[in-house]
Structures are given as structure tokens and as C-alpha cells.
């Protein structure tokens, strides 16, 4: 089974500063990678996903992530955060050959400080 590690449970950052949320996964097999965001009192929604091709993936709201196969990482970045980015962020992985199950990390709570 896969496992997904989000090392930082809480990340405070000042408004307009850059941020990186880290995600590492365990599997050496071919995977698809996702970042989801959960705003307060809302359901999870997809930020971006990596399926194949370019390792730098751009998503909504100015976020991007880079797939690094050798380091089994998929870190999420934004060059300048906004107050509205305050939310819980979840990294998820699925095996390309077994598409029925998705493995989620424990989440990173991003708090943007004015």
C-alpha cells in the first residue's frame, strides 16, 4: 500500500510571502499525484494534478507543484500568498495500475497572516 507524508502539519506565513508545502510518497511504482484544498466549512476541491509529461504542474489560484521521481516528492508552491489561501491542503497519490484507491496525507494547515 502507498503512504503519503506531509511533514508540516501547520505552516504560518505572512501575506505576500512565498510558501512551500511538502509532500512525499512511498511507492516506487508509477503514480498519479494530486493536491486538494479544503477551505473552512467546505469540501475538498482539486488544486492540481500530475499525470504525465512536464514535471512542473500549474493549478488554480497561482499554485504549482513539481514532481520529483528520484525523491518521490510532489511539493506545492506559491510565490506570493493571499489571506484567502488560508486552508487545509492535502496531498494524494494513486497507483496508475490500480485506480480504485487514493491515498491521502494528513494535511497541512496553511495560515496566512496579514
Amino acid at each position, binding site marked *: 500500500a502507498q503512504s503519503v507524508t506531509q511533514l508540516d502539519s501547520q505552516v504560518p506565513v505572512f501575506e505576500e510571502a512565498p510558501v512551500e508545502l511538502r509532500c512525499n510518497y512511498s511507492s516506487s511504482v508509477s503514480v498519479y499525484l494530486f493536491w486538494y484544498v479544503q477551505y473552512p466549512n467546505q*469540501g*475538498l*476541491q482539486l488544486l492540481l*494534478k500530475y499525470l504525465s509529461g512536464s514535471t512542473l504542474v500549474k493549478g488554480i489560484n497561482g499554485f504549482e507543484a513539481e514532481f520529483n521521481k528520484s525523491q518521490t516528492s510532489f511539493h506545492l508552491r506559491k510565490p506570493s500568498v493571499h489571506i484567502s489561501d488560508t486552508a487545509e491542503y492535502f496531498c494524494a497519490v*494513486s497507483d496508475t495500475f490500480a*485506480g480504485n*484507491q487514493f491515498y*491521502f*496525507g494528513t494535511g497541512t494547515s496553511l495560515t496566512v497572516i496579514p
Partner: protein
Amino acid sequence: GAGVSQSPSNKVTEKGKDVELRCDPISGHTALYWYRQSLGQGLEFLIYFQGNSAPDKSGLPSDRFSAERTGGSVSTLTIQRTQQEDSAVYLCASSFEVNAYNEQFFGPGTRLTVL
């Protein structure tokens, strides 16, 4: 169009009682997933449906948990003889079909509290 809806949004029950949680997926989505989100934990996969069938029930935590889906649409997750450790947010998601690359659309969740 309407997103994934779940009911109730909150449920408080006494230990030992049975509860039913409902999920209404996006129309036309054949895949439906149930997850459990406990405090400080990630999303724990419980079960998925392809149409009305659930090929893999191994993610269900115990035999007190069961789920069904009828008409390829609404799904119910039933927890019998609830225990305090069942307290969590139960999330439902749907996608166009079961595969590894489709986006999942999540409902707002049902917060279950077992006293």
C-alpha cells in the same frame, strides 16, 4: 450544476446506536468513494462503488460498517452499534468513473459524534 451533497451535516448519537449517512453524488458519476477524516489524521479510504457494486470492502474498519448504493446514484454508509472511536467526519466523493486519474468531487462531509 449541483455538487456532491451529504446528509446530515452533523449527527450526534449515543454509543451503541446505529447511524445512516447519506451521499448524493453528481449526476452521471459512476464512481463513488467514502472516506473517514479523524482529527489529526488524513483521509482514510473506506470503500468505493463502481455503479452499484463495491468490489473491494477491505477498507471498512470493522463489520459494523456497511455501505450500499442503489440505482447507481445515492449511497448510504451505515454504522451499527456505534463506538466513540467512530467519531469523525465522513466524506463522500464522486468521479466520472473509477480510474486513477479522474478528479474526485467531494461533498461537505457528515460530522459524526458518538457520546
